[in-house]
């Protein structure tokens, strides 16, 4: 066998090896995409009753379809995941004032339209009950039962003087990197 032929053969082997490597890499990437298929990340920024309600209905739907759902809760959205009652002892004057002015928990939220100084949400809750629509706090509990990951924004909590124990049990605390990481691994991201 001439030296030329040997060189040609080893070249072919190198090319084959490279193709196999490339195929393996692509297969891994496709497998990763299939794993992520349908996972969803949401930002719950709004503390409006109606918007939080919509967010949790969508989250529950995705969970019912067997998807992983992460809800990153920031700013006014935090109102929706507060415990109905907690002590603000040991916090600064401004923090106490902000906490006193904001609703505590899903049953106290205002509506984005037709709030009428708090009468609107009462009316909507009554109408929803009449039509057998589940309440917001039940939607949150159901989502948690289905394994939703609720992450409260650390920075917003600090600004408002909120502590982890003021929020519903099972809520994690995290930052923007956690949200982005979760979003990059999802193929649906919603901002509510």
């Amino acid at each position, binding site marked *: 066998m001439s030296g030329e032929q040997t060189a040609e053969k080893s070249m072919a082997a190198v090319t084959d090896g490279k193709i196999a490597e490339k195929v393996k890499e692509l297969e891994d990437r496709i497998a990763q995409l299939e794993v992520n298929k349908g996972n969803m990340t949401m930002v719950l920024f709004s503390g409006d009753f109606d918007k939080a309600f919509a967010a949790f209905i969508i989250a*529950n*739907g995705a969970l019912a379809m067997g998807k992983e759902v992460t809800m990153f809760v920031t700013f006014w959205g935090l109102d929706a995941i507060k415990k109905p009652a907690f002590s603000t002892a040991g916090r600064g004057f401004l923090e106490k004032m902000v906490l006193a002015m904001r609703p505590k928990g899903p049953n106290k939220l205002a509506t984005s339209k037709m709030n009428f100084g708090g009468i609107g949400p009462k009316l909507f809750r009554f109408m929803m009950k009449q039509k057998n*629509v589940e309440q917001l706090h039940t939607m949150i509990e159901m989502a948690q039962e*289905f394994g939703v990951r609720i992450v409260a924004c650390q920075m917003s909590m600090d600004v408002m003087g909120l502590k982890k124990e003021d929020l519903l049990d099972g809520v994690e605390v995290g930052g923007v990197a956690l949200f982005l990481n979760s979003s990059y691994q999802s193929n649906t991201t919603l901002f509510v």
Partner: protein
Amino acid sequence: MATRLDFKGMNCPMPIMKTAMAVKKAASGDQFEIVCDDPGFEPDITAWCNETKNVLNGIRKEGKDIIATITKA
């Protein structure tokens, strides 16, 4: 024999969530007959089956009731 699930009077998204819960506990090949009177149930159960790969055997209507039969994939 299909397990009968009665979700009459329930509204979105409860019928889908309750279906998901029941199907999750079942074994592959198990059948369900789901009764619901929410008009949104027909497109919803179709979409849910399409996404979850569970088999929608058929949907029929009896008055206001929508009856879907599904088989767990």
